[in-house]
């Protein structure tokens, strides 16, 4: 049975080179090209329906790089294994080594490609935590998987994130999504953009319009008034000094 491979690279010659190499090693590893994409967003759109088992992803693509692409794909039920490809990204390479993530250097050698594909066919795809550790910056999007489709929510659209029992509710001005990531990790990743106002709640700094008194609640005497949503969120007594400070800086 041949391995279904998806190629994501923004340079056409690089994609055609990989196709050529896949042809060269067909005797060793049989593959079918399941699809191609010229940038990360396009790849994200096409991969779920392509049935790809392995993704060859360039790290440095416009719109969305390979690492963020892989992080969103990890939410899929049948996420493809990912082999990263880079011409020269020392930081990424170090991070991959550190987190045992497979990668290839451009120009790619046929033997290395064959070995990586064989390994990828056996191994489980890198999990989210592994990828998150290897990533160098915050993502541009959060993703929600809905019926084998990946829905992206731009991080700049977030108004607040609130943890309930098992999920985190992501609120934008338009609608609500449920995501499966721990609030603590999100707080760390988006520290520049989001501020914790309560044990279970992060709010976009830019969306804070002001505060209102919250009479009758000892634990949370203030409410945050937000742009874009009518709901007012309680600020815990513990977070109040931090939040107030932030806003007076504005």
């Amino acid at each position: 049975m041949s391995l279904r491979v998806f190629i994501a690279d923004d340079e056409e010659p690089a994609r055609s080179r990989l196709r050529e190499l896949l042809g060269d090693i067909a005797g060793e590893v049989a593959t079918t090209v399941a699809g191609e994409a010229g940038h990360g967003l396009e790849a994200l759109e096409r991969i779920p329906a392509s049935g790809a088992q392995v993704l060859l992803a360039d790290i440095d693509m416009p719109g969305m790089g390979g690492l963020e692409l892989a992080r969103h794909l990890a939410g899929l039920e049948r996420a493809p294994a990912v082999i990263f490809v880079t011409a020269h990204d020392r930081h990424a390479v170090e991070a991959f080594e550190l987190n045992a993530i497979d990668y290839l250097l451009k120009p790619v050698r046929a033997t290395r490609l064959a070995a990586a594909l064989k390994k990828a066919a056996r191994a489980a795809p890198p999990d989210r935590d592994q990828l998150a550790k290897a990533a160098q910056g915050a993502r541009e999007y959060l993703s929600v998987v809905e019926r084998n489709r990946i829905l992206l929510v731009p991080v700049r659209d977030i108004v607040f994130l609130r943890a309930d029992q098992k999920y985190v509710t992501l609120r934008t001005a338009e609608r609500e999504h449920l995501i499966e990531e721990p609030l603590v990790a999100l707080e760390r990743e988006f520290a520049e953009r989001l501020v914790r106002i309560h044990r279970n709640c992060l709010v976009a700094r830019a969306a804070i319009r002001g505060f209102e008194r919250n009479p009758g609640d000892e634990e949370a005497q203030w409410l945050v008034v937000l742009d874009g949503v009518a709901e007012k969120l309680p600020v815990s007594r513990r977070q109040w000094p931090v939040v107030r400070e932030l806003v007076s800086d504005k």
Partner: protein
Amino acid sequence: MPSIRQNAHSDVLPDFRNLGVIARLLVAVNAVAFVAALLGSANLAQGAERFARSAAVLEPLLLAVVLSLASVSTLLGRLAYPAGCAAVITIVLALTAAAHAAIGALDSGAAPDLARMLVLAALIAAALLGYFYLLAKAYSPALTEARLQALQARIRPHFLFNSLNTVLSLIRRDPKRAERALENLADLFRTLMSDARQFVRLADEISLLERYAELEQLRLGDRLRITWEIDGAPSDALMPPMVLQPLLENAVYHGVEPGTGVGEVLVRIELRGARVLASIENPYIEEQQKRAGNRMALENIRERLMLFFDAEARLTTRAAQARYRVEIEMPYRVDAPSVARSGTA
């Protein structure tokens, strides 16, 4: 071949036609005069007034000295260093004596003591010659060379490996284009590894730009669209090597590669008066902030321009209306400024 090396000998008089040298002269002499005025005064107001009065004599004299030195700079350069220094001091003394005579003719009562004026002028001239000597020493050939080597433009490894990958992809499909791409790559690296101290002709730098652009075009295809406005470029102008190529590389790296659409790049080189203007414009992509290294490349080029042209070259950048623009302005020179100086080219 003209080279910057001759510029840097410490036992050579400064080039009095150079704007940087002239500016240093004007500032230094006025600073000395101001300090002198302050020392002889009871308070700041009195000092300022005294300085203003002395300026009436000092400024015309200083101007005459600067103009005379500039006009005979080439001749001075042919003299041995001690003779050159003697000639400079003689010129200064002669002009000072002339100034003294002129003041005497205008108002016989106001003329200061001639001997005092001459000694002061000689001392200041000698001090400035010493300053220029030390300055030249600080930029001595060894140091200048080391700095230039360190500053030698580097092509991003990112570009090298991606280009090699492009060539590999062409070898089977289109061997002719693969050959051409390798030739272009060889030319780029030959220039890159060449002597960073040599001036090059603008025409050579432009052909390098075109070779580089051709390689990027292969790699990026329709995503890269370069418009060339270089008909007015003076092909014989001399400049440091690898000044424009890194700018075009920046434009592609920061302005085209991070975008998903078509990136329009504009290259414009023209002669305006006695100055060569070169500008490169590319789309300003917010995300380019994530790609580091732009500032360093610009600082590098700026410093190399300074080593070659002192204060006469300028590099400016501007980001407006979603476009990013780098502009270089340098003097239009067809002969290296220092060739006459050392006598050996």
